[in-house]
């Protein structure tokens, strides 16, 4: 973690609901190094989108009672709206999930791209500047060239034609490419991709992901991928953070995570994925806890096949289980991954060792008895 471009420290996000305060994000920590591609993986409702929106500053109705979000060392939570706005779009940009609704249907692709170029990083333009920009054919021509060039870079074969098109005239894959082009227009240092390609067909999705991979590689852009699909995460990311119920339960370099998945949730998830060679597992029973009344201990304990009484009581702080591997589970011993948990570590909960480690199964054998057999 030499030079992180983004650091999220002990982030808590709360929402006020009719049933009380929902503690949707409960103290998560992760970071992305420059040029690295990190993935935030989790299922519906785990809080991955909320995390991203807090980073982008797009959550007006939430409160952040605790935590820091550092972008290039600067705490963005303490910035004014205008300052945040100037970073959004210019320094970090986002690719939304749904290529059908993320583009404005009444503007041409070109108009939307020109808008980005005109406004990027500026919360407001002075009227004189706006008039000057609008009248100056020079700036306009420059922007146009730049936009068309960008469309070419996302491998759109007729960029001039697409530039003049309305979103409805384009196929889903095409629109997703346009969204990528728009996100990369301002040459951001950090790109956040929220399930790109999920709405597309498999063959198209594969192509779009490959393309995105190439583009960020060329530019040395750091990327945060949000996905529910561990298979996609495996293909695109260097590092994976597995999220469950507003907490990061396991983080490790991608290869390490697949070779040695530790948290019972990660293992359950891996087992549930249908594979070509080993079949389909039993899935994970139960459902997410109530965010307005979350369990005191481990938020996964209710669904965990290895949970003991202590798991429901004691908070499973993330612990260092390998040189670059942290897991938030009482089945593992290790120093707290975060300083703030040192006091908890003085009185460790002992519920034994993970059964798949003692049972003689190879650590990587996810088809072993790690699931929820009944």
């Amino acid at each position, binding site marked *: 973690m030499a030079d992180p471009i983004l650091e999220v420290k002990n982030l808590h996000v709360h929402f006020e609901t009719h049933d009380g305060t929902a503690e949707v994000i409960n103290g998560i920590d992760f970071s992305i190094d420059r040029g690295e591609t990190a993935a935030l993986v989790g299922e519906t409702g785990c809080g991955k989108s909320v995390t991203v929106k807090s980073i982008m500053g797009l959550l007006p109705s939430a409160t952040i009672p605790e935590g820091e979000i550092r972008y290039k060392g600067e705490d963005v939570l303490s910035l004014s709206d205008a300052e945040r706005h100037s970073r959004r779009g210019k320094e970090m940009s986002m690719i939304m999930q749904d290529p059908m609704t993320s583009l404005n249907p009444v503007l041409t692709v070109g108009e939307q791209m020109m808008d980005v170029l005109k406004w990027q990083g500026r919360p407001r333009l002075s009227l004189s500047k706006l008039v000057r920009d609008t009248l100056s054919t020079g700036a306009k021509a420059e922007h146009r060239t730049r936009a068309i060039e960008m469309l070419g870079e996302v491998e759109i074969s007729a960029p001039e034609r697409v530039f003049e098109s309305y979103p409805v005239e384009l196929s889903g894959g095409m629109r997703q490419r346009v969204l990528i082009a728009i996100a990369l227009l301002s040459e951001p240092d950090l790109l956040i991709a929220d399930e790109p390609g999920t709405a597309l067909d498999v063959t198209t999705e594969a192509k779009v992901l490959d393309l995105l991979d190439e583009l960020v590689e060329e530019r040395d852009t750091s990327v945060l991928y949000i996905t529910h699909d561990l298979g996609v995460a495996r293909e695109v990311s260097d590092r994976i953070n597995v999220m469950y119920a507003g907490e990061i339960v396991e983080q490790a370099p991608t290869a390490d995570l697949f070779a040695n998945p530790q948290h019972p949730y990660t293992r359950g998830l891996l087992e549930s994925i249908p594979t070509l060679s080993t079949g389909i597992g039993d899935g994970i*029973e139960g459902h997410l806890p109530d965010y307005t009344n979350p369990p005191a201990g481990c938020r996964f304990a209710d669904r965990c096949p290895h949970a003991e009484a202590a798991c429901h009581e004691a908070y499973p702080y993330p612990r260092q289980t390998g040189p670059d591997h942290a897991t938030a589970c009482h089945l593992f011993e290790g120093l707290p991954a975060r300083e703030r948990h040192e006091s908890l570590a003085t009185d460790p909960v002992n519920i034994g060792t993970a059964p798949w480690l003692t049972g003689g199964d190879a650590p990587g054998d996810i088809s072993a008895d790690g699931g929820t057999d009944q």
Partner: protein
Amino acid sequence: MSTKTSLPFFDTESAARKERIRQLKRGFRTFAGNKLSLVGLAMILTLVVAALLAPYIAPFPEHAGAGVYFDQASEPPSATHLMGTDTTGRDIFSRVLFGARLSLLMSGIVLSIAISIGVTLGLIAGYLGGTTNTVIMRVTDIFLAIPPTLLAMAVVAATGASLFNVMVAIAFSWWSWYARLVQGEVLSIKEDEFIESSRALGSGWVRTTFKEILPNVVSPITVKATLDMGFVILVGAGLSFLGLGAQPPTPTWGAMIAQGRNYVTSFWWIAVFPGLAISFAVLGFNFIGDGLRDVLDVEVD
């Protein structure tokens, strides 16, 4: 192991009831979030209680009918006569209370008729589509184009002025709004997969429309009906003001205003208090309607 243990043990019926109560509470909190809807609720409750108990709380219940009490004619509001008396000496407060009964009853009956016709036609038109839809909706359009007061006046002119005729006349012009509202809702609900599921199970169109679709249009109908309660009172009052509704001495608010309109400058209370009663009712229903709209999250019109 996990499902069974992670589910809290509960007794079937009482858990279902508890959940119901929880939802109602949540709904009420949304409703109460808008202070005006609470005010509206209080207003309408007052009105309903007053209407129900009119014979018991009216200081002069006998004044509801005909009667001449010249010794106390045209008295201004006082402790005995809270709203004063009319030109024949009847207690206006008592008559306004009885008027509330008539207004609410009339509004309720009119809307029941209008909703029964409108909703049925709207459901059929929306679900069956095609020619059926075209025929029903064009007829609906024609009725929508005629102002209800005008239509009611024509009907009453043809059939004679009576409370019953007025109610039928208003209902006759009012159903078209419900037909249009419901048909629109059905068109969107029809696209939901549970309608196809129902067809896939082998149910015919009657079952699908009335069992599957109808429960899903209840919310917008409820909101619209609440708002309309006030408007129907208004139209009814207008018609009785013109002498087309219930005939004297029946104490309808409209007729009372008509009676007092010649004395507004000298005995203002004769017309003003029934007028206030109308405003009170219309406003109350509108406030509730707005609150319900938030709770049920629907758009009407």
